[in-house]
């Protein structure tokens, strides 16, 4: 699916977000990315969904070097990648139906898109997607009147309409409460399983990553720190991954004591129930 070799991203202000990142993700894989804030995870996801260009290095998507894509080819490649963000990625003033149908914008002509704003088309399709994420009654609600968790479900419904091969979720549960976080992560996992989509997720919470993902990538200072299955991830490795980042270490300490903020939704992990 994805092949990255030595990808670097240096922003205009000189800050280095990615510093030689190499990794390969196969079709249908589920991968969680963890690491301290500022490690470059969000930049990586923007490069993976082709809205940001790496400064150097190579990124292949299904064998194609994306540096060779432009214009309509680039947009077509983007339609095969669906992205869910932390929040604020919906247009609050539009009704839910339009935000969901925006998943079609890569396929629709501009005229069709404009027509749908005046009189929504494919509403049954949108209604089905909303039913799948558990809020069928919100089809004609104004988006900014929904709660944070409901808005996140609308974002997932948009990705369902887009029907991509890869789902990228960049901190999708950082702004919702723990119970909701578990239900959104499992929803994304189940949806990806059903239609054999590749799922890549940035997670702030180590517990969720280790519980729900078969492959864990630790990212630190713009590089891959480790790339392991969850049972191989030791508390010492996590200590090292988050070294120098105070707030996240408190969470690790709780993990070491066998407690976590998600209760029974996350099983005790081998190596952590000392």
């Amino acid at each position, binding site marked *: 699916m994805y092949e990255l070799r030595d990808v670097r991203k240096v922003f205009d*202000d000189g800050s280095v977000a990615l510093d030689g990142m190499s990794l390969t993700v196969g079709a249908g894989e589920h991968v969680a990315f963890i690491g301290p804030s500022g490690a470059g995870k969000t930049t990586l996801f*923007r490069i993976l*969904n*082709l*809205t*940001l*260009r790496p400064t150097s290095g190579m990124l292949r998507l299904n064998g194609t070097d994306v540096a060779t894509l*432009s*214009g309509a080819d*680039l*947009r*077509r*490649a*983007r*339609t095969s*990648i*669906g*992205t869910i*963000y932390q929040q*604020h*990625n*919906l*247009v609050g*003033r*539009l009704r839910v139906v*339009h935000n969901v149908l*925006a*998943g*079609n*914008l*890569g*396929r*629709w002509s*501009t005229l069709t*898109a*404009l027509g749908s*704003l005046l009189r929504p088309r494919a509403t049954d399709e949108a209604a089905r997607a909303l039913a799948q994420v558990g809020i069928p009654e919100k089809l004609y609600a104004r988006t900014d009147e929904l709660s944070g968790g409901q808005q996140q479900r609308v*974002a997932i419904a*948009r990705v369902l309409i*887009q029907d991509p091969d890869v789902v990228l979720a960049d901190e999708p549960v950082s702004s919702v409460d723990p119970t909701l976080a578990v239900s959104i992560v499992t929803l994304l996992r189940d949806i990806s399983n059903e239609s054999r989509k590749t799922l890549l997720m940035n997670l702030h919470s180590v517990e969720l990553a280790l519980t729900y993902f078969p492959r864990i990538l630790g990212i630190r200072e713009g590089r891959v720190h480790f790339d392991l299955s969850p049972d191989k991830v030791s508390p010492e490795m996590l200590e090292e991954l988050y070294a120098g980042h105070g707030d996240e270490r408190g969470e690790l300490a709780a993990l070491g004591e066998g407690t976590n903020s998600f209760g029974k939704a996350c099983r005790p992990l081998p190596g952590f129930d000392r």
Partner: protein
Amino acid sequence: MSAVALSRRRWSPWLIVAGLGALVGWSYHGTRVDMGALLSVEGLRQIGVYVARLFPPDLSAGALRDAAIAAVETFAISLVGSVLAACIAFPLALGATRTILYHGVLYEGQRLGRAPKALRLGVYAASKTVLAVLRTVPEIVWALIFVFVVGLGPFPGVLALGVHTGGVLGKLFGEVLEDVDPRPLEALQSTGASRLRIVLYGILPQAIPQFVSYALYRWEVNIRAAAILGLVGAGGLGQRVYVAISLFLEHQLLTLILAIYVMVTLVDALSAWLRARVL
């Protein structure tokens, strides 16, 4: 942005106050302000005499009907002028928005070639220039020009308001367009949407309520301006005011002033009520 602000030299606030004070003093002298003449016994008496002569307002059926017709005409000039302004402002504002043409989140995934970028910079510069010219020429000057072009009456008033306010609104619309939240745009872009579709689904839905609000506010400004434009022959109450002053019809003048007051107050209230509903 912040780096620029920090590196910019900080001026002492006292120096700025002293500079502004000197400028006010120089202007006061240059305009030959003479408060003594205004507030002298003779000056105050003149004011009293003129105000007394205005009373009572002419409330005869003929004068009232005349004022009402002129008021409706002024209302219509301001309304049509404001709609024309919004129609002029909208396309020019799209051309005066860097984040739509060549800069920002929509251009991070793919760099523009040199020739397309130069073309877009040209469109931006041209739109900005046209807007600046439209708005720096005052509406009264536009009215004089259009009276010369299309003759006396309300039509040159409509054109003058539309062109000047078009320049003002175009600048404001452009600022609104550049200020929309870029995060939804990034999400729309990631679905493979073209930039035109991102404008339709991401930028305009965020911007249009503010467009409407600004247009309504400018309508309030335009109802006052429409009352003035008549002085140069561009229709409405102003034209009647000019005639009343010239022919020493003081009682009718007061009726017209009251008509302006009523009309401006009504439009202010209506516009405020509407603005509260769009935002």
